């Protein structure tokens, strides 16, 4: 790729999506392109494949030479011959990237029949081989199934099989694991690495996650605002980081092992790509920026052999403190008391399944199936687990957004499980929720000010004037400018929107906040900002958090205690130190080992427990211990007897309950 530039939109007000991007990919090599949303990483590879829409997109410069042919110059009919045959692609969300109305078999064979003009039978045979290779059992039968009959992890395997049927020489993977759970992500990464060796192909892996790619690629290119800012062999990039943006990205990731120092977010907001790229786009967010950075765009300079960086001050960066000033403040210690603010006992949320002429209930989805925990005043309890484990439903049931089927929810001494009307409204003054997706959870037709103030109005708190004043206070508290009050959500960035979501939640001065994956939809550099904000608010307002999440490294960073959920039940609960330090449940261990670590050297030495299969159907949970079909330690008893939680804690570590027959064995 030589000097690729891509713009979108009309000439006068174009979006400069890709600016002068060059890289090489050798036969059999794996290259990761890492960047946040809007960095141009996806546009770069989609341009190469001829997948961007023109208009509005247009290539303003550059060549993409594939074995001597310029892919950007040849007509689409010729590019079509290369697409899918020599260069294939897998996409982010396997659920939406496969056609819902066509069988898997047809979608697998069509590329083969197009490019190699195989007979139907021969194409089918090759497709079956490929299905086996990616680990889909029962191929002949599965070929006739439709995408919705598979789980996300299986679909991504099928997506990979679909890309590889023609044995391409380059596989482009566009964030193929972002939509998947961490244990499934581990499976997919392992699969792709294995297939790469087996088939001898080169890989371009697009990701927003430096830690993930650290484990398995040869080289990394970091992109920001449409340009490559740093590119090096993976070991070199992590050991001799020279670009301030790369450094910032690494600092935003909480460590799984190190002491909990406060996260160092990259300040500011994502770049404005509507300005012509005539200066360093990172300068407004950079701690090292000087006048020159705002006037001239730094060229890519060679640091070492194979290591380039685009920073005017890269020689000095090394000598300047890696994380400036305020960064070293230690995370404020949780001032948790011993008094329980919330006690949930044997909570069950079952969703009925109805069938037949008379819609009789024939079963139930056991979303939450007997969960008990306490949240102490002033602490942060984290609920973790993979999608479908019931963690979000638990959170919603606590707030009364979901009606519990059984169990009690005691808040400050009063059980309000199943409460409605006035009583529930009263509860919600004291507890609020921060929702996962700040793009979908804010009403697009309401201004920021109205969104934040709505809860006050609903609770009939204060007068119009005092509510207005309170909204102003709240804006300041979450770090938003007063001027944003009259803006609409679409005018804000993801981080700003989540700040609005947080301001809305704390408007009525609640004591307890349920945060349902509040950062998972945000960019890495913004995540750290939001986490720090939640931390600050907790101390300033004396809040207690129930934090629902799946990002374990973030959870280790911000929680006092952790409850690990699997298929509607808590399998392990204890202090963060004991659960992360000495996990006792096999599921917790697998979960922890699946987390990518931002260290290329750890990839080989760390033993990763890759769980087979996926989470079972919660309407038909396995007998005995729900985890036993995937558990490496399962024995006879596990399939028969449901393990009761046992306390493995001590006076120093606090209670550490584990529901496993084999916990504590050598």
């Amino acid at each position, binding site marked *: 790729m030589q000097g690729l530039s891509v713009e979108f939109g009309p000439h006068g007000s174009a979006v400069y999506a890709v600016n002068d991007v060059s890289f090489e990919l050798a036969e059999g090599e794996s290259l990761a392109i890492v960047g946040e949303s809007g960095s141009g990483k996806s546009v770069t590879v989609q341009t190469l494949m001829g997948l961007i829409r023109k208009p509005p997109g247009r290539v303003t410069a550059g060549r993409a030479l594939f074995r001597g042919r310029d892919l950007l110059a040849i007509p689409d009919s010729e590019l079509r011959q290369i*697409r899918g045959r020599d260069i294939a692609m897998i996409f982010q969300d396997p659920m939406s990237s496969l056609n819902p109305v066509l069988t898997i078999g047809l979608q697998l064979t069509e590329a083969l029949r197009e490019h190699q003009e195989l007979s139907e039978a021969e194409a089918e045979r090759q497709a079956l081989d490929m299905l086996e290779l990616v680990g889909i059992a029962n191929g002949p039968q599965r070929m006739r199934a439709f995408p919705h009959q598979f789980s996300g992890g299986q679909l991504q395997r099928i997506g990979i099989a679909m890309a590889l049927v023609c044995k391409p020489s380059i596989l482009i993977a566009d964030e193929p694991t972002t939509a998947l759970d961490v244990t499934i992500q581990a499976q997919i990464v392992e699969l792709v690495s294995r297939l790469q060796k087996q088939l001898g192909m080169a890989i371009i892996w697009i990701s927003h996650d430096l830690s993930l790619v650290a484990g398995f690629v040869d080289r990394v290119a970091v992109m920001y605002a449409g340009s490559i800012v740093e590119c090096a062999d993976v070991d070199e990039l992590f050991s001799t980081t020279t670009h301030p943006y790369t450094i910032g990205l690494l600092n935003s990731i909480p460590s799984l092992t190190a002491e909990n120092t406060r996260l160092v977010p990259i300040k500011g907001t994502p770049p404005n790509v509507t300005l012509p790229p005539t200066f360093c786009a990172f300068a407004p967010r950079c701690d090292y920026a000087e006048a020159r950075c705002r006037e001239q765009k730094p060229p890519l300079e060679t640091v070492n052999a194979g290591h380039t960086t685009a920073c005017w001050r890269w020689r000095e960066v090394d000598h300047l403190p890696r994380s400036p000033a305020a960064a070293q403040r230690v995370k404020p210690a949780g001032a948790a008391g011993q008094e329980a603010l919330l006690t949930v006992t044997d909570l069950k949320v079952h969703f009925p399944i109805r069938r037949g*002429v*008379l819609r009789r209930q024939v079963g139930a989805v056991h979303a939450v199936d007997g969960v008990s925990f306490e949240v102490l005043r002033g602490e942060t309890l984290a609920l973790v687990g993979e999608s479908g484990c019931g963690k979000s439903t638990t959170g919603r049931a606590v707030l009364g957004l979901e009606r519990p089927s059984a169990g009690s929810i005691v808040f400050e001494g009063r059980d309000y499980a199943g409460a409605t009307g006035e009583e529930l409204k009263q509860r919600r003054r004291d507890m609020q929720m921060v929702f996962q997706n700040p793009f979908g959870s804010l009403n697009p037709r309401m201004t920021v000010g109205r969104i934040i103030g709505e809860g006050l109005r609903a609770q009939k708190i204060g007068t119009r004037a005092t509510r207005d004043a309170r909204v102003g206070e709240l804006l300041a508290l979450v770090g938003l400018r007063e001027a944003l009050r009259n803006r609409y959500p679409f005018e804000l960035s993801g981080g700003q929107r989540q700040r609005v979501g947080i301001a809305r939640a704390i408007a009525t001065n609640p004591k307890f906040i349920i945060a349902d994956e509040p950062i998972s939809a945000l960019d890495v550099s913004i995540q750290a900002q939001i986490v720090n904000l939640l931390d600050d608010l907790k101390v300033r307002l004396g809040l207690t958090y129930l934090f629902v999440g799946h990002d374990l490294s973030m959870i280790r960073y911000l929680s006092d205690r952790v409850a690990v959920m699997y298929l509607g039940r808590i399998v392990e609960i204890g202090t963060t130190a004991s659960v992360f330090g000495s996990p006792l449940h096999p599921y917790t261990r697998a979960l922890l080992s699946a987390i990518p670590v931002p260290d290329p050297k750890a990839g080989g030495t760390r033993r990763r427990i890759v769980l087979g299969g996926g989470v079972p159907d919660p309407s038909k949970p396995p007998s005995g211990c729900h985890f036993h079909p995937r558990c490496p330690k399962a024995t006879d008893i596990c399939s028969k007897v449901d393990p009761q939680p046992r306390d493995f804690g001590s006076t120093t570590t606090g209670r550490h309950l584990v529901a496993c027959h084999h916990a504590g064995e050598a």
Partner: protein
Amino acid sequence: MLSYLLRKLLFSIPVLFGVTVIVFAIAHAMPGDAVLAMITAEAPSSEELIAMRRGELGLDQPLYVQYLNWIGQILHGNLGRSFVNGRSVGEIIGERLPMTLELMGVALLIAFLLGTTLGVISALRQYKLTDYSLTLAGFVGVSIPDFFMGLLLVYVFALELRWLPSSGISTAGDSFSLLDNLKHLILPAAALALFRAAIFMRYARAGMLEVLNQSYMRTAKAKGLRPSTITLRHGLRNALIPLVTVFGLALPTLFGGSVVIETIFQWPGIGLMFIDSVVNRDSPVIMGYVLITAIIVMLANLATDLAYSVLDPRVSYD
């Protein structure tokens, strides 16, 4: 699937019952009755004669008795007899229904094929001249009411150009032939179809544009498939799914439309029959017509639901 069908059919019983109440109430709320409608100015009749005729038709009984009698007949599969000529209502409708179904069926087919094709073309050429022209044509199409479209077609193709006959189902005096019948069908079917084609086109365009933005379309392109394969195999099939709803909604309006069109083109279907029976206050025929169309519409809705599950494997009924 079977239990879904059974449940739907069970639910349709109270609905049909409601229909009988409403149609009976409306038929009897009309000013005058069948006897008065028969008595025209040139045949003045005495009060006794009117009372006698009313007695013969059962119109002198209390309304609830009339209703129960009618319902009783229906439950025996009998729609009653026409007040005007004494023929069985079931027989009259049975005779004329095929004509109406032919007209509606052909109109729907034209509307669907024309609308979908143009809609897909419009979407593929978004914001180009073709798209704008088709959008304009579609706007004109939805703006012209059925009856006016009918008159316009008659004027242009029957009166001015003299290409096609303007009324009836076959040429008077000739023996019936399919070709002749189809020639008579073209104008009324087109009059009914064009408005609906315009609606189908708008929905097909929107549906296709939505599908074009889906990631599976990008996957299909990334596989290196031919553009035609991408559009037809991957695109159209998905774009058709929302059209099924529009198709289901078009059906009831077609019955309304056919009443007007059959009158203009003197097409001897149940629409024309309905107008005649309203003029004659022939309430058994009016009620029979409404009941039969209600049943057809309900069956069509059921068929629409089934069409979903055929087109979209994610939809399954139980």
